[in-house]
């Protein structure tokens, strides 16, 4: 159907180049200004030598890249990034699936619950992160007070300062702020599944678990796919949560590639925008590869099953 209408429009005469540009203009300006120009600047910066003041001193060749790739903190930072992205995305999708099932059922007060779920999504990441910083506080945090008064722990835990807990505490916040979007995406996916498929399954005597595995999950696949890809990108690029919760910790022990990139530019002894730009280019490549690999993996499996 789409094909036919397109053919009809073409038959009525093509737009001139000028006319086309007029329509495309605003979008092109946006793309060039917001995507292309910064990307080109980023790459250009990554090949320059910069003073601590930000002044360009000359060409660096590829030395920013070699310095970045050989920096001793990098393996740790990459490991942190893997744990952070992996854990947040997997937990977010799993919790999102459960929550979406719940939200798509009819029950009293559903409207209220749906609104409540939106709140963490609607509030700015910086605000949520500051809030959790207070909740996790060693001396005055609600979490420690609660666990102490329930006698679950004997002395307070340094959720953000003790290296055993820092990453886990940050992941919990990452999941908290990512779940609403994912849940709503999946609710939409669930609503798109026709009711008669379920009816047929029930008539054939399928158990609820069978129905969920054989019907709901496969039909939800496109929604899950989009949820995972978008979360991969958002979580990888998530700056405020880690920046704020990890803000008073020394060193790079809990940094991800994104916060590490920022510290390279403005907070570390290197204080080098060129080096940081090289890190930025590296980050873009990493996320592109991650998304590409994931989609290939999913397609490959789907192809085999079909």
């Amino acid at each position, binding site marked *: 159907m789409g094909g036919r209408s397109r053919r009809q429009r073409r038959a009525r005469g093509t737009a001139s180049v000028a006319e086309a540009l007029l329509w495309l203009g605003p979008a092109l300006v946006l793309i060039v200004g917001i995507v292309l120009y*910064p990307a080109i600047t980023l790459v250009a910066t990554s090949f320059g030598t910069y003073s601590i003041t930000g002044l360009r001193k000359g060409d660096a060749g590829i030395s920013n890249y070699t310095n970045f790739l050989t920096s001793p903190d990098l393996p740790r930072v990459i490991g942190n990034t893997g744990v952070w992205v992996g854990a947040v995305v997997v937990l977010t999708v799993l919790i999102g699936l459960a929550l979406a099932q719940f939200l798509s059922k009819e029950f009293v007060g559903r409207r209220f619950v749906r609104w409540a779920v939106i709140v963490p999504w609607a509030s700015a990441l910086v605000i949520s992160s500051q809030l959790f910083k207070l909740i996790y506080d060693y001396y005055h945090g609600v979490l420690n007070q609660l666990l102490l008064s329930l006698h679950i722990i004997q002395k307070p835990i340094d959720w953000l300062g003790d290296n055993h807990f820092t990453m886990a505490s940050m992941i919990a916040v990452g999941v908290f702020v990512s779940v609403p979007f994912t849940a709503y995406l999946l609710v939409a996916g669930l609503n798109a599944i026709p009711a008669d498929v379920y009816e047929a399954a029930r008539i054939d005597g399928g158990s609820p678990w069978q129905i969920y595995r054989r019907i709901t999950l496969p039909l939800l696949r496109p929604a899950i796919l989009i949820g995972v890809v978008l979360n991969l990108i958002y979580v990888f690029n998530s700056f405020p949560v880690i920046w704020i919760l990890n*803000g008073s910790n020394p060193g790079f022990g809990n940094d991800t590639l994104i916060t590490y990139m920022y510290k390279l530019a403005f907070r570390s*002894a290197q204080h080098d925008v060129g080096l940081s730009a090289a890190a930025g280019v590296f980050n873009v490549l990493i996320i592109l590869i991650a998304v590409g690999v994931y989609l290939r993996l999913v397609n490959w499996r789907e192809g085999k099953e079909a």
Partner: protein
Amino acid sequence: MKKSVRWGAIVAAAAITSMTLASCGASGGSTTAKSGDVKSIKVVIAEYSKDHTKTFWDAFSKTYEKQTGVKLNLQIINWNDLDQQSSTMIQTGNVPDILNENAYASYAADGLLYSADEVLPAATKADIIPAFVKSGTYNGKFYGMPDLSSARALFYNTDLFSAAGISKAPTTWDEFTADAKKVTAIGNGAVGYAQPLGPEEAQAEFAIWLFNNGGDFKKNGKWTINSKQNVATLQYLKDLSVKDKVTQNNPGGTNRTDGAFSLFEQGKAGMVVGFSPLQGALDTQYTGVKYAIAPMPTGDNAAPQTYGVTDYLMSFKKKGNQDAVKAFYKLYYSPSQINTWIKAEGFLPVTTSGLAKFKDDPKLKVYLDTLPNIHLTPTDDPEWDKIKLTIQQNIGLAVAPNGDPKKFLDDLQAQAEAGK
């Protein structure tokens, strides 16, 4: 369709990632005229406090514009973002005319700044306290004009001290440790000493202690970061938390403003190294805390040293802005301006006339007496700008239970020497 999803996703990934990066790089344009004298100057000021900074600088701008006919484009930036923004301005060529920062030597080394000979009236220069002229001088020229200063001293909670049976402030490190133990022994959440060695301002905490142990970062033009005294100092600071257990939890991960100061403001900390803005907060907001101020205890039985900090108002060489910049300094250093500003923010003067003006203020007396002999960090060496960042980022690791103070300082010394 699958293919389009994949490409859509990849494009989205690229777009979002580059937008994240772009947000680090964007900044406004400057509209300085290129021919003849400038019609406007861009002045970037650090936000010392929400209440007073904007009030003062708005009024200042009005006076300046009336006097000179040059428009003053004021931009006040939070300390946390200042470094990133100023660096971005220079990177993208939107250089300000005047920049308020806590470092200047790297800018001078890059040849970006006017020296005092070019923009500071001689009478004004003569009024600035010599210690600050010295710290603002790079390669024999005075580039870093001080805007205000602060000095640190030991604050102690007199209620906690009397509860612990201590009658006077400690004067030696042994007494300090003993007193901190006594305060900690009170229990009920009392902390002997609130020690901020987190990334915010750790170089200040370290400097205060090492100056009072006969140490320094640089002596006679040579880096002395891993000197015997400095290693002993950092070991002592580590022992306070790891061995003696008289500090708050995790000092290496505690920042000054939202960590150590807030413990003291809540009456939980026996001692903290503070400065006049903390005093201001205690006198107006946290009036329940009874406190007193004393000179720092010393580790080497020498006279106490006062650690001081000054920030800078540096000016950038741009075509046609020299007169406008000169007029800016002339107005800023006039007693009615600078003293109003310093008094409002609760800091200390940088001029001899300011010293005279504030000398009768009983609250400032403890600092003012030592101000002319104040001990500063080597801000006149561009390499210090990087050393400072390393200390801020990493000293917390050196004082952790598995940290190695000596190795940390050895590495730092190597970094400083390699920078030359």
